């Protein structure tokens, strides 16, 4: 067990290192340089040259590379070019927003998905199952940014039930009581989380249904039925535990994706999260910020798959952890 743990951790570090190195080379080779003011009035060449010198960008690439990793080893992420403040602060401001959005979306995704999958498996092949199968397939196939636009159009612009974007109603937020603040945050959370959650739920439901139907075909289920257990008891008590495993592994894969796959949603709803931060950083050639977000995202992916593996091993004693 310990050997496996050590090997995984070592592999994880190696992967993160490789990913960040790749990104480093790629972003430095990209055309265009970082110091551009927002409304396109070009900066004087002397100013640009001085900024490049300040940030050490005029040194040869291998030297910059080494410096970056030495700096990283000391725990410093550097300063953002486009935000003019430490990268750690920029990320610290963005991560809670993304986490809020994605955990809510994941909650919607898995709750809805598992319930629908369960319902479908219980009524396999009947009309409700077929109808739901088409609905889940439809949502699963939608482009997320398109759904976001449609939801924004219908619920924010036409009906006015929810705000069009942002995290809070900044002007009012400071003076609201605690309950009011909570309500305000919730109102702003609904549309973006719903967009992500609905599309995800479509996929999860399909997955859960398939896993359940497979589990229902196993020997022990036949035994349970032969024992005279009601169908629902068979489903929930026996088959479901089996079928939950693949869904857990799905969660392991889903988490990192949601950390960064919300770029398009964050753009449509002006949600100041990590995805938008990363996309903006790439187009602004903000090297330290790009590298830091890649580092974070890659760590999340590695951690996510690690956790999924551990959970699967814990839940199913048949699975042995091998390298």
């Amino acid at each position: 067990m310990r050997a496996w743990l050590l090997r995984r951790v070592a592999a994880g570090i190696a992967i993160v290192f490789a990913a960040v190195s790749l990104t480093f080379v790629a972003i430095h080779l990209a055309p265009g340089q970082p110091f551009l003011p927002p409304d396109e009035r070009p900066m004087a060449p002397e100013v640009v040259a001085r900024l490049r010198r300040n940030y050490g960008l005029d040194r040869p690439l291998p030297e910059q590379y080494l410096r970056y990793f030495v700096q990283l080893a000391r725990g410093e992420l550097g300063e953002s070019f486009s935000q003019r403040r430490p990268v750690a602060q920029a990320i610290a401001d963005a991560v809670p927003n993304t986490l809020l959005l994605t955990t809510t979306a994941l909650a919607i995704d898995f709750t809805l998905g598992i319930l629908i999958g369960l319902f479908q498996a219980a009524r396999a092949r009947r009309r409700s199952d077929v109808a739901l199968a088409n609905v889940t397939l439809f949502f699963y196939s939608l482009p997320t940014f398109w759904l976001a636009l449609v939801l924004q159009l219908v619920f924010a612009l036409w009906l006015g039930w929810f705000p069009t974007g942002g995290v809070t109603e900044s002007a009012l937020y400071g003076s609201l009581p605690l309950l009011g603040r909570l309500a305000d945050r919730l109102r702003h959370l609904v549309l973006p989380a719903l967009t992500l959650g609905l599309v995800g739920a479509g996929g999860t439901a399909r997955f859960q249904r398939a896993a359940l139907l497979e589990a229902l075909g196993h020997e022990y289920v036949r035994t349970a039925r032969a024992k005279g257990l009601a169908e629902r008891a068979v489903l929930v008590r026996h088959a479901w535990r089996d079928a939950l495993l693949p869904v857990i592994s799905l969660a392991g894969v889903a988490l990192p994706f949601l950390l960064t796959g919300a770029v398009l949603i964050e753009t449509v709803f002006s949600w100041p999260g990590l995805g938008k931060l990363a996309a903006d950083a790439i187009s602004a050639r903000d090297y330290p910020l790009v590298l830091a977000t890649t580092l974070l995202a890659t760590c999340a992916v590695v951690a996510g798959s690690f956790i999924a593996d551990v959970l699967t091993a814990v839940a199913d004693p048949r699975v042995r952890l091998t390298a």
Partner: protein
Amino acid sequence: MVFAATGEPTTLLPAVTTAAIERDVFDQIFLKLAEIGRDGGTFGDSGFTPELARSWEWTDPLTLTFHLDPRARWQDGPPVTAADVAFTFDAYTDSAVGSDDRTTLIEHIASVTASDSLTVVFKFRDRYPEMFYDATYHMRILPAHLLRDVPRATWQTAAFGRAPVGAGPYRFVSWTPGQSIELAADSTYFLGRPHLRRLIWRVAGNLNNAVTMVLAGEADAVEVLVTPANIAKAKADTALAIYPYAGSTYTFVRFNLRANGDRSKPHPVLADPQTRRALVLAADRPQMVQAVFGGYAKVPPGPMPQVWSWLWKTKLTPTPPDSTAAARLIHGRHLSFHLAVPSTSPTRVQYAQLLQEQYRRLGIELVIDQVDNPTLQQLLESGKFDATLESFVTDPTPSSSVPALWGRGGPTNYGQYSNEKFDALVRTASSSATQEAAQTAWEAAFAALAQDPPGIMLYALDNFAAVNRRVTDVHIQPDSWWGLVRTWRIPPNQLTERDRAGR
């Protein structure tokens, strides 16, 4: 009072940036010596209103003396002194700080000294009509006592830029990154406390989100509407009032007269002035303006935005489109070139598509390359482009931006355009003593430009700001959109819950 901002500032330290988003905010916090008049005139000192300087005089033709208002105080207590002004000039002209105005200031002003705590002396190198404008327009006076010890090389990222302290009508309260910036009215402001107690900029990310915010009532004002759809929506909204004002931007296609990627050779297609004239004639600019802006923009006769309103009174008109003449000039050759367009501007992408189709009908092949801003800047600087579609935000005076963009050797003349006749006329126009003389000279200069076009001047925007009706006394200053916010009011019977919060 909530503003919907299309982007987010990076820093609020005036010396390191002149971007509109940042000026919107820091112009409420910082003051200049004198503010430009409502008509935007830059000749002499007519129309300028006193701010930090209570009065001024010309002690000799090259020396300008300002007397500061003794009531002026920094928001953290100490009074504003002439030493602050001298310090500000020193900072603005220091290459370590990297101000955009450095070259202009150094070129004309030899020194700025404090002769006593309330008297500042500006010494100029030469006489020209816009001396007063240069002395006052560019610099926002900075607090020496707070910035003296901050190393100049770190000003770009200084913490002061995230929590600025000025002498103006509003003081900084808070900045929630990615979301909002809040300012509060300074009750001790020496020129009278502003009526609006709180100013909040909400970051919307892009124009459409900002307009949506205002239409939904989540914000009270947005500074530009741009598209006719937005204008129509805003006009239809009974809660909003529309304020038209002259825009400071103009958009153009820039031709590269040198070969793509090789400055030593002329461009195979675009070096020939006849070809360029043909391209201008083939572009049906009035039709494009109608299609994209519904008429809420004008085709400029030269590289000029609408804010230079005195220039639009000339007899000069833009070259009318003439596809037959264009076809004749092309002689049946198959022309083909690339147009680099920034992907962040939907309007310019639309314009590119319209232009592409118009050219296709004449057998000219225009290939559109959508690139992001840093790439575009790199293409321009390295000369690796055929044509680009750019927008330019100008100063209130043509004498700075026109030679920079189109004059020989100008720092932003990336297309390597060179026209001696034009350069000479520009020099005359920049040194004209009166507005009438300048007008005539600029007219001649732009006429020379039309014969040998460096690009296609596509449009100069009519700007519209949408402000909630409950706000009265609204005046928009063209060069600094929210510059006069301190004079706006909301009558007490119109205050909403949001306005009352935080009092």
